[in-house]
């Protein structure tokens, strides 16, 4: 066992764990933030996507001992404070989720995309979101919701964004 300090959603957590425990289990079972999901364990489904200093990463592939210094993680619970991120609002407006299990990961990829690219094309969306699987098949709505969120953000439509 070794001791680590990691910052998730702007809060520092002291963790005692084996060095090879993947971050997804640290976030879920050591810290207790269950919004980040486990799906495949090989970075092939995207359900465990979180932000590492703003960039989407697959938390199933990052052992706790490999977390870089000054790493700041953001999970689905941390993207919008008490309100809703514009992406979450668009997800509700277009009724994107079915089971919703993959949607934390989808939303983490989508928020990172919008930050980098406020007006993404279908092609941009395909590239940014291709790593996030959805077995319920919500892709058409995801694509439309990202466009809608971009429009809302670009027109400063208030959705209680705290980000």
């Amino acid at each position, binding site marked *: 066992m070794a001791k680590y300090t990691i910052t998730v959603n702007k809060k520092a957590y002291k963790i005692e764990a084996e060095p090879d425990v993947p971050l997804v289990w640290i976030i879920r079972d050591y810290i207790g933030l269950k919004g980040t999901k486990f799906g495949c364990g090989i970075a092939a489904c995207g359900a465990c996507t979180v932000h590492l200093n703003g960039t989407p990463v697959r938390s199933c592939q990052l052992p706790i001992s490999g977390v870089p210094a000054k790493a700041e993680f953001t999970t689905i619970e941390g993207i919008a404070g008490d309100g809703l991120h514009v992406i979450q609002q668009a997800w509700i407006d277009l009724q994107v989720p079915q089971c919703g299990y993959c949607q934390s990961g989808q939303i983490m990829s989508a928020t990172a995309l919008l930050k980098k690219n406020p007006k993404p094309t279908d092609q941009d969306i395909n590239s940014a979101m291709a790593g996030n699987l959805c*077995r319920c098949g919500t892709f058409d709505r995801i694509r439309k919701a990202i466009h809608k969120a971009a429009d809302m953000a670009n027109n400063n439509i208030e959705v209680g964004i705290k980000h």
Partner: protein
Amino acid sequence: MSLPLIKTSRRDFIKTSGLATLGLVMGLDAKSNPKNISELETMAMDIEISPFILIKPDNSITIVNPRPCMGQGTIQAVPAMIMEELEVDFDQVKIIQSDGKSKYGAQTSGGSTSISRLWLPLRKAGAATKEMLIQAAANKWNINATGCYAAKGKVFRNDTTASFTYGELAAEASRLPVPSEPVLKQKHEFKIIGKSRRRFDLPDRVTGKALYGLDIQVPGMVYACILHSPMIFGKLVSFDETETLKIPGVIKVLKCERTMIYCTTDSVAVIASNWWAAKKGRDALKATWDNAGLEKALDNDEFYGRCYAASKKDGIRFEESNDFNAKFDEAKHKLDVNYETPFLSHVPIEPENATAHVKPDGTAELWAPMQGPGETLEEVSKYLGIPTEKIKIHVALMGGSFGRKAYMDFIKEACFLSNKLKVPVKVIWTREDHIRQGPYRPGMVSHLQGFVEDGKIVGYHHHVIGESILGQVFRGLEDDQPEPWIGSESSVRNNKYQFKKTHKVSWTNIKTVIPVMWWRSVNASNLGWGQECFIDELAHLAGKDPLQARMEILEDQRFITVLKTLSEKANYNEKLAEGKGRGVAIISAFGSIVACCITVSKSGAGVSIDKVVAVIDCGMYVNADTVRAQTEGNIVMGITAAIKPGIVFKGGVCQQDNFNNYPIMRINEMPEVEVFLIENHEAPGGVGEAGLPPVAPALGNAIFAATGIRMRKLPINILNLTA
């Protein structure tokens, strides 16, 4: 669940409703219900009330949803049927999930039956309650019930503005007789049913607050990761846990078992303080298995070899008009071909998981994603030898299921381990466990024969060849018996085609130990591929447009309306550019009729899928947007089933194990989709599965239209087509 505060003074509060329905109770302690309602759908006798509707004096109203939600929206659509008739809206009620207890009747979300089977019983429960509340108000006002009406959780007088809340009326109403034939609303009176309502559960699903089975955490819980036989049914000879026990966090290694419906297999479980340690410990186990016979038996080539051999012989007849073989021999313009579908895995993104606590005091508690809490309670009770009343089931949200979480093997594993250890145990399968262990959608071969005369399809024979879920899983099929489920789904009574000269449906059971089970749309996805592609082939043989040729052999007005609507919505008669092609397919399944039109473009050595238009006639429905969403999802799962690799067993081992070698569709492959609903007054059909079966054949037919290549074997490599 919350219990109502009001206690009735009459313990014999037996309400009759000769409706093959449940009744209702208000203000009655649910636990006082002494009767067993094992099958909600088949109840024909007088019954005591089932507490789907709980009203407290403070006017808080709780509606119990008896159909677990796996993404298909039952958590809202099922209570909506009660609420529509009860005259309450979502902002006035709390919705809770039933817990498997028999008083809620059948509780399995499966077979796309949640709306269709509960459509009348739950609406009658709501309507009867409303009538009792109105009568209670009328009694208080000392007027006739016709002088009152219900709206928004209150009863009003017609002649004044006076009103009572339901809470104020519940006690009085509960003493009234339950109307046996409550008046149900007409379709034009619906306020919730038939509209596009936003799902109240989605905010939690986009903020990470929704708790799925995997998210359950119980104090004192330990984690388990289980080593199953690499050949599924191998017998455990020995295992060595030396390396496993060196891993920090590992607590214990013990022999375990996987209880499938028809057999129990050996396994070894590693218990640890965290799941990663359990998984590492599992991977470090050295186990020896006796796999005698399995190398040969678990093998796709061996299975399909026998299927194709059977296609050369007659099967067992399910139905026949005239003498098909004789007519086929005489026919001049005929086709005789085979179609094939692969075995498939469900791959919901949430893997199998369950948390069980078998306590030293002889009670048990269970938290798991499950499609059937009622069946789970019964099964777990039998498995543990603990009476149902001493087991508490918490139904967790399912992170997808598609049939898989109606199979209770993973739940019983958690029960087995907790029973040994008497602490809460959480079992989590890896993705590799899920894909390698099955059970799977069965692979099948359709041998199809048909002929045309004077430009019309007049002879058709569908010989279905493969393993039967009824036979393998439920041991319910005799060797000389045609598969009744498959037979009726392939029957002309189901597909409504009128073959003027002759038709036949037949069956050959090719038994296999490759474990099979239901997978979204069950047999319909297998049967639809051959049927609808072959009708297309016969249409071309007849020199007809495939959609027109279908119209010519259909008389059923609902089918014709669906096809006409599809033709219009997909601009079917508009000429396509060179290199593009359209294909259609229409299938009736789960009481609904769905037709698809897919447009593809030639692209290199293959095609790309441009657009999918679907038309669904599911009769009356609860939530229009959910119908669209489910159909969109079926299109995606249908395309995946058509173009992505299937499950292949070779030498006893499943060759796929994760999304890298068992890929599913991604967003960059997503075509444009449009879904249209037919409006009518027909009884509700299923929505969760019916949209899937026509997708693959519509694609196959589109590929033929664009390229002239007839695909008869799934999956199709759309990047490089070879027939």
